[in-house]
């Protein structure tokens, strides 16, 4: 049975593509057969984060329009042979994707025995975002501890509960997973940033993971290597925990405590 996971947020720049890349890679590391699809038509970026930008020949829209087969368009990951990337089209035609076209591609991935399909949603609540979430079984809602992101994710949670196939057909609802990213425990302790508990209380749903703000995330995207593969970073470790939880394992949250400054830093500040 193929499970479809949408990674969404409403607000842009909160870490959807970073999360999609790490989630898909993490699932593949657990031996699952995974496809990760970029739904951001016109603003292709997942290929860069996955490090396969120079190998894109055919894209999602080519497959939907029958200009290429799915097999031709799926880019096999360099590191994991059971992980495939389907790039977004760079066309400016926002209507290039249709519900029927997306359904056809997802059905074909199901026939190919994929365990998971990760749909990287564009920002906003327009057509691309709607199509990315419509067929989902799971939703990972990426949120930053910041007012506009929290408000937008509440709106997205509302849409997940009403504007998806599961909701329209009256099936069991999408499993919602809240993922708090760019978390800075030092700023939380100083009262400058919403805490995990604050965000959970406001949205009425508990988090599936907390990814600490980390320099390694930028370094990973610079290099085109999903941060989950960075064994020296807390962000990578937090993504590994998150993947395990999505697969049903129970793991305590980590990296929520402030990092204490050393003696010299305490004396001289900074």
């Amino acid at each position, binding site marked *: 049975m193929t499970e479809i996971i949408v990674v969404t947020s409403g607000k842009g720049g909160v870490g959807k593509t970073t999360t999609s890349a790490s989630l898909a890679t993490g699932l593949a590391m657990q031996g699952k057969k995974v496809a990760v699809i970029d739904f951001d038509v016109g603003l292709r970026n997942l290929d860069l984060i996955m490090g396969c930008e120079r190998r894109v020949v055919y894209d999602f829209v080519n497959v939907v329009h029958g200009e290429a087969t799915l097999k031709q368009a799926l880019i096999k990951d360099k590191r994991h042979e059971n992980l495939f990337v389907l790039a977004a089209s760079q066309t400016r035609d926002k209507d290039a994707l249709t519900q029927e076209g997306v359904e056809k591609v997802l059905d074909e991935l199901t026939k190919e025995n994929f365990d998971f399909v990760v749909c990287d949603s564009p920002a906003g609540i327009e057509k691309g975002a709607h199509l990315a979430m419509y067929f989902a079984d799971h939703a990972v809602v990426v949120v930053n501890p910041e007012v506009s992101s929290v408000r937008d994710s509440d709106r997205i949670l509302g849409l997940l509960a*009403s504007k998806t196939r599961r909701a329209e057909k009256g099936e069991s609802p999408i499993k919602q997973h809240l993922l708090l990213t760019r978390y800075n425990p030092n700023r939380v302790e100083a009262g400058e940033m919403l805490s995990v508990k*604050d965000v959970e209380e406001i949205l009425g749903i508990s988090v599936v993971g907390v990814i600490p703000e980390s320099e390694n995330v930028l370094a990973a995207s610079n290099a085109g290597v999903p941060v989950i593969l960075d064994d020296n970073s807390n962000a990578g470790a937090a993504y590994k925990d998150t993947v395990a939880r999505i697969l049903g394992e129970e793991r305590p949250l980590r990296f929520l405590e402030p990092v204490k400054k050393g003696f010299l830093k305490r004396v001289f*500040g*900074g």
Partner: protein
Amino acid sequence: MGILDFLKRKPEPSAGVAKERLRIIVAQERSTRGGPDYLPLLRNELLEVIRKYVNVDVDAVNISLDRDSGHEVLELSVALPDGKPAASAG
């Protein structure tokens, strides 16, 4: 806190303010969610009409739409200020 930090003025902790503002706006947006798009507009226009006669607060008008088996109930509640006489019309 380091010696140099004493020289920098610390900003007021603001997370509490953020939480309170979010709590209110999220509750308000949830209450109109799923209902027709005209509800917020209806609420505002009703508020204008009521204010012609009674000096009420912005939060005084509450509208909710409930679905009961087969029919919908539009519930409207207006909290009037106590004690004071109503403001004169016009």
